[in-house]
């Protein structure tokens, strides 16, 4: 019985260690995940915090320039209806390589990973969610 207890204590220590690692892990790496509609009203409160924002690139808003460290992209993301006025959208700045599914004309559904400050969302990463989008388009055609 004594050994069993000792084993239980060992197991509890391990469980505690896992819990501690998970707690600090969440504290240090948590990122808010928001849709553009959720993000817009809260954006000032979330300034300089890590965010992931899902939205649609507005048609005709993309400008592109080659720089020594990749493409410099400036565009606006808005809600998924796509026709939003500038007040319903936020400018995004990104230097790097846009994903394959990112359309230069706009209209791609994207997730922007980065930080918001002084009116602009500075993206570290631009993700497109391609296959599901692809399926949705097919479904819409029928």
């Amino acid at each position, binding site marked *: 019985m004594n*050994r*069993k207890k*000792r*084993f239980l204590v*060992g*197991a509890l220590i*391990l*469980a505690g*260690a*896992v819990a501690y*690692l*998970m707690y*600090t*892990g*969440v504290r*240090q*790496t*948590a*990122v*808010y*995940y*928001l849709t553009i509609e959720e993000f817009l009203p809260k954006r000032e409160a979330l300034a300089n915090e890590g965010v*992931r924002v*899902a939205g649609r690139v507005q048609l005709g808003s993309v400008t592109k320039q*080659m*720089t*020594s*460290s*990749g*493409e410099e992209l400036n565009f606006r993301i808005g809600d998924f209806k796509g026709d939003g006025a500038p007040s319903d959208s936020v400018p995004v700045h990104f230097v*790097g*390589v*846009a994903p*394959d*599914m990112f359309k230069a004309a706009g209209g791609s559904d994207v*997730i922007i990973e980065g930080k918001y400050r002084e009116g602009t969302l500075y993206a570290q990463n631009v*993700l497109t*969610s*391609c*296959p*599901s989008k*692809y*399926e*949705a388009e*097919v479904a819409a055609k*029928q």
Partner: protein
Amino acid sequence: MVEVGALALAVAWVLALYAIGMSLAGVYWRKRDFVASAEHAALAVWGLTVIAVAALLHALATHDFNLEYVAHYSSSTLPLQYTIAALWGGQAGSLLFWTLILTSMTSVVLLQNRYKNRELMPYVTAVLMLIALFFLSMLNYVTPPFERLAFTPAEGQDLNPLLQNYWMTIHPPALYTGFVSCAIPFAFAMAALASGKLDDVWIRTTRRWTLMAWFFLSLGNLFGAEWAYLVLGWGGYWAWDPVENAAFMPWLTCTAFLHSVMIQEKKNMLKVWNMVLVILTFTLTIFGTFLTRSGVISSVHSFTQSGLGPYFVGFLGLMLALSLGMLVWRLPMLKSENELDSMLSRESAFMLNNLVLVGITFAVFWGTIFPVISEAVRGIKITVGPPFFNKVNAPLGLLLLFLTGVGPVIAWRRASAKNLRRSFLVPTALGLVGGLILFIAGVRHYYAVVSFSLCIFVMATIVAEFYRGIRARQAMMGENPLTALAHLIGKNRRRYGGYIVHIGMVMMFLAITGTSAFKEEKQITVKPGESFQMGGYTLRYDGVTPSETPHVAYLRANIAVLEGGRQIDTLRPEKRFYKKPQQPTTEVAIRSTLGADLYLVLGSYDDPTKMATIQAYVNPLVSFLWWGGIVLAIGTGVTVWPTRVRAAAPAYAPSPREGAVTE
């Protein structure tokens, strides 16, 4: 053919239901012919599924674009191997393919156990057919593969270009086989609970199935990693994406199960724990399918957002409630027959290994569903990314690596000081010396130093085991070292196969450590003729070459790889443009050596200026991941290879136990 396929699925649904009813009725009223009828029905379900799969393959091969599935996932110019792969490229097809594997395995189990385990088999049939019934219900009522369109498109939409890759053609079958194989030990465990035959017969009967499940889960994960590495073009192979986690979690619990059943076989301990692990493993495979199919958690490469989610949650809940309910009901009969003797023993090393594996599973599970939980609790979605998983799992993984060295060689029951000295003195010394050398050489990445010295420690324990075994055979049998090695492995396949698997795991740890600690990456925009440095190489961009086939248009960058002023290679990363779905993709170019991979991506290309953005990565030791996978496969092969042909009782003669059901 299409109508035949749809009809086959409908009849299969009825027969699966019939098989469940008849096998349970057969047990209840002790009717042997009921049970036999149920088993025949289960075999028929398999046959009907084969017909349905054949019908869908026929439609794909003949480009019957009137069929919605064919129009969605293939085109007339799609190469044949991908036309076949389109069978599991879409949702309905992948569920059908899943059902095919499940019913095929059910048939093998039924045939294997015609004259064996008769008390268990009716329940096994019922459980497996219940799972089949769920998938058949999806196929008949929710996402039918044989749906026709109102019109016939001239051309199909084509298979998603990201899936048009060799590794993507073999990754889903391997993973599904792994997932589905987990259902067999689960079904036997449930049968043991239901029948009250709770000795280790269910474990011995399903040992090979569990190993097979583990083998295919390992391969499935590795093939997926290889695919991500070659196709997704971000320089890595694992991103802790929910879809990856979904496949990784059952692997973890299956690994734990493989180890803990050894304790039950040897010591009659951990009976409840083994039940819990097998239930967890099975439900995690269903949870994994749910994650990839429901879209409840956003994943960068999630496949579909479909209405399947609620059905899977319902099925998951039903299976969990049934299995845990039965476990609680039988709890009094699952008493451990032995106690743990000492903390320094193989038993406790194995238990610790189990706790670590389950701990990792829990952390991965938590990280994966965190957005859902935070939204429910705090009303805001919070995600945790790869840093969370790396931070939590790195120390746990290292502890696991340490136990990989300890577990197989520490003595059962209670390790004496002599046993510890004999087994661990030299490996520990070698590990410490290795770590010290790395530190003196200037490596300051502490996780990496610890990981490499643990790799040395584990390898040393394994090599020492082989060495001692060979020496003993040489002394006793007078064999030469090579014969001794062959006989050593041949006579103890399970043990030495396990060691070989561990060598494969050590190789993978080397790769994971190398790529996570010492990866280099660079992104640069260059003009034709311009050069840049990367990982000891000079890379010169020599412009692009376009080319075209009816299916795809290519844009290849020519990049000369120079070492010491001399050109040693040309790498050609591509941009592809698939014409049917109008979708561009990236094709990486890799120069692979044992030490490191040079990995190049053509990020973007600007036609007017001829400038290209190149993403370059150096991934140290990454090739050990794939070699480790091969070693792991060989080791598993050695372990499951039949030791000897069963001498007693010819297989065709009914054994006296056959009538057990009616007793």
